[in-house]
């Protein structure tokens, strides 16, 4: 149904489009000069505004979270502020560039993205990889920078899965005229997704591998797979989880985190500590918070990783319920806009990419915020757009760029 060719080649016998047929789309008053800017006009400005707001809040929170510790050490208190600001600016540039690219080019590049991500994940297991907090998830770069390939694995998985589904179905649509992926298609998709997930599990980055699994499962669901297969997959997944637990594939500290999530007071000084401290920090923020840079728990560094995984505690304590709800709301806007873009996407690839990204942001935000308020187990996941970290910010903004690209194309040919 879509295709530049069909629209742009009017047939003489048909008479061609009437003059001014495209005028309504140009909003009539726009001049030719302005029509060159139509790409900007057709951006999803609400999505962009929400993302910019989240990034700005994130930069401020990272600053507030790292300021006391850096001041104690006598270091430059703006070290992380500056870095995070640079990350955001670079990320926004990437986002902007991607937003004007035809997303179907991306479809072509999906296998390359997938391959690079695989290589990156393999590299962290080699001596190139650096270990941070017990997980070998980073590659050291000159200049003190680090790359976390598992963040990009999310993009690779989404692109690859969407590409596979649309290619496999596209091939069949023509020959068999059937709709919906076959079980074989799903098998191929899972087979391509597993190496990524497996390598992230090995790192080990349990949080991100959970995101990958959920995103993959969500995309399979949304691909139009038959409901009874959905049920079958759920059963297989349940058996898999049970098997992983009984075969001790989950590492001890991961189990401890999960069990301390269920009974945090049992282990108040150990794994339960993080959860309790996070709740105390957020709870003590009250309605309006203790004010940016004035959080008690923040200055005493009670909550661990408060500039990265636990940054929401800084928001909760310093900005209060109002600030926390604003962040949740902004994240909600991003996810809903992503779903809207998915709904309006004009091909399966775009729809699946947008859906995958929506599920990614939704799940990761919910788990991250949920773990700080005691409704989800503690896993190492950053809060999208807000947590400190170059790779995470880049990945998030690249994903937004993909959304804009899908949205843009849809807008142009609406």
């Amino acid at each position, binding site marked *: 149904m879509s295709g530049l060719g069909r629209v742009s080649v009017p047939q003489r016998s048909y008479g061609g489009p009437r003059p001014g047929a495209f005028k309504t789309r140009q909003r009539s008053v726009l001049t030719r000069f302005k029509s060159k800017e139509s790409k900007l006009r057709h951006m999803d400005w609400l999505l962009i505004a929400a993302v910019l707001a989240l990034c700005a809040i994130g930069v401020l929170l990272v600053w507030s979270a790292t300021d006391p510790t850096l001041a*104690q050490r006598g270091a430059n208190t703006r070290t992380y502020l500056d870095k995070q600001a640079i990350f955001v600016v670079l990320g926004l540039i990437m986002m902007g560039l991607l937003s004007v690219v035809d997303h179907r080019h991306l479809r072509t590049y999906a296998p390359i993205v997938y391959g690079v991500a695989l290589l990156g994940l393999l590299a962290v297991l080699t001596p190139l990889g650096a270990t941070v907090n017990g997980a070998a998830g980073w590659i050291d770069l000159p200049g003190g920078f680090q790359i976390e390939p598992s963040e990009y694995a999310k993009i690779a998985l989404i692109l690859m899965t969407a590409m596979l589904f649309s290619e496999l179905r596209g091939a069949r649509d023509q020959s068999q005229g059937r709709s919906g992926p076959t079980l074989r298609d799903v098998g191929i998709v899972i087979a391509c997704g597993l190496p990524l997930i497996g390598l992230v599990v090995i790192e080990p980055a349990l949080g991100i591998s959970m995101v990958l699994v959920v995103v993959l499962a969500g995309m399979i669901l949304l691909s139009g797979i038959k409901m009874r297969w959905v049920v079958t997959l759920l059963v297989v997944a349940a058996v898999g989880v049970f098997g992983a637990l009984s075969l001790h594939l989950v590492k001890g500290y991961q189990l401890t985190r999960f069990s301390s999530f269920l009974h945090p007071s049992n282990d108040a000084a150990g794994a339960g500590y993080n959860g309790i401290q996070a709740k105390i920090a957020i709870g*003590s923020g009250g309605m309006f918070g203790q004010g940016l840079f004035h959080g008690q728990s923040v200055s005493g*560094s009670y909550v661990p990783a408060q500039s990265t995984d636990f940054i929401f505690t800084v928001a909760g304590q310093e900005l209060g319920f109002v600030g926390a709800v604003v962040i*949740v709301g902004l994240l*909600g806007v991003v996810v809903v806009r992503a779903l809207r873009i998915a709904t309006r996407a004009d091909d399966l690839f775009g729809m699946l990419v947008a859906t995958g990204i929506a599920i990614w942001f939704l799940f990761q935000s919910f788990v991250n915020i949920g773990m700080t*308020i005691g409704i989800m187990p503690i896993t190492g996941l950053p809060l999208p757009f807000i947590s400190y970290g170059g790779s995470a910010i880049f990945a998030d903004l690249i994903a937004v760029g993909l959304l804009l690209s899908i949205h843009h194309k849809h807008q142009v040919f609406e």
Partner: protein
Amino acid sequence: MMTASRRRLLVLYVVVFTLLITLGGRLWYIQVMNGTSYVKLASQNQTRKIIVPAVRGQILDDVGNALVTNRTELVVSVDMMTLSQTSDGGTSVLKRLAPMLGLSYQLLAEKTRLCTATVKQPCWAGSPYQPIPVDQSVSEQTALQIMEEQSQFPGVTAQPQGVVTYPTPSGANPAQVLGYLLPATTEQLKQDHLPSGVGYSSADLVGQSGLEEQYNQALTGKTGSSTVSVNAAGDVTGTVGGTAAQSGDDLVTSLNSKIQVVAQNALNSAVKKARESGNDANQGAAVVMTTNGQVVAMASYPDYNPNVWTNGISQKEFDALFGQADGAPAINWTTQGQYAPGSTWKVTSTAAAVSDGYPLDGSYDCPASVTIGGHTYKNDGEPNQGAMSFSEALIQSCDTVYYNLGYEMWQSDDQKANVVTSAKAPVQKMQKEALAWGFGKATGIDLPAEATGTVPTREWLYYYWKDNAYAGQDWCKNGRADGSYVQQIEYQDCKSGNVWEPGQAAIAAIGQGYDLATPLQLTNAYVALANGGTLYQPRIGAALISPDGKVVQKITPPVAGHLPTSASFLAYVRNALAGVVTQGTAAGAFSGFPLNKVCVAGKTGTAQVMGKVATSVFASFAPCQDPKYVVVVMIPDAGYGADVSAPAARQIYDGIYGLEGQKAAVPGGQVPSALPSIASTGKITAPKGYSG
């Protein structure tokens, strides 16, 4: 197209809104509904209660010389909780630390592991949550190096702390009497007077033996607490409040350092002398007590350097301290050694006979041997000495007089009770007297783990038989009627070990056989003899003095009872014992001693122990007429009392009174009657007329 997908996208919208509402609701619950309680928790978070250890009290001698005191040292401690969180469990930190402390990594690792049922010293007996002191005295340079390179030494601290030291005034080293300090064990932490829970620090040592254990509570003082504000890394950012620690009281003892040194030297040379004459003597005890129950000197051989405890003790050192092969230097043999008292026991046997109606002025045969129950008992190879008085029997230490007395009293005793197999059988006449003199039970001295000695009552005999007939030594299994000598005895013991036999009664009358006494019990009995019949619970502690100099508690030996004998009988015995030194068994040992200056009275004892050389005993008091001191020396495996222990006692009297070229340990041979005074500044002043 993609209707299924679009339907599912709609479901996803629902999921999104559900999750957003969940987050918002939970945030409302935590921040708005419960915000105030979390605010409270957050501010509690910011403070920590730290236990401030109290300065431990000193132990002083009778003129105020410190026997145990504290010195501030830079102590290096390792917090294994922090170390265990490093990537290699602290191995690399310990490996960096060991050479700085001049230790091998192996020893350092052993010092920081936790003691368990299978892991023995060296190990950490305290709580895993408290920092483990690994070096009690490092140079300031080392301390600075450790504190400045905290990234290299996470969990390692170097801080000034009070460290126990033993000044050994004049060379006095009553190590076993003082006892030692070790970090509180888990059981001890549960006791109410110790602060419980986290924060009980490495400085909190608990007395584990001797006076340190006995007076631990007073010496410990009251730990204070300090509430400080801290950040999550544990860095203290300020003090909020708290209570000051209250230093422990000082314990003034009745021990006199100079007399202690005299007793130590006398004991050492006596053991050396015994060993030189080919005997195996490897332990011994010398006790000096005033006749009102205060211990002036208490020497146990072998002694040891108590500093061995301060820096964490190695397995080798620990074995050496408690190993029997080395004479177990950590054991206080004066209260824990149980030896046959030999002829010093004849004093109680005489008292028993007189109580039983034997005339004090009667005469008693002293033949070369007597035959009792088919067995012939000799008077140590002496010829028949004819009839003699009790006085003469004590002076000459005639065994056959007492064999006969023991046998005759056995005959006139309740014979039916001898064969009753029961713990409730009445005590024999002779043994009843020994019990009344304080034998067979702890004296109640202010030292832990005192041995009771043995008086072979029918009750004791019953339990002895019960414990060994079919268990313990398993007489009935090992005994043979036609086997070796030992097997024959075991056979007999199995058959009739519970029966009080005439031979046993005869041997018990001369302080052998089953009779066992600790050196302290013997001393205490002779104190009662010397002071006219008052039996005390001996005391080493004389007073507890608070850090501001007030006498918190004056300690006087409580009266435990009175001897069931008349004052005239005791005077008779004291006279006889004076004769022992002038013309009896100890005359040789005291030949040339200026008895005209200080009259010494005493009784020798040479207790035959099967398979060993005799235990050498001398129990004495001086001056004869108004006794002030009782001196007892007991050395097992050493030979005749007159040859080994009596000369040691003579040496002690020389030292106390300044005789035979010695300098008097105390002016006029008098220990101070007043306590030393302690100023609130900590300055200690000796009682008037005495110097520290």
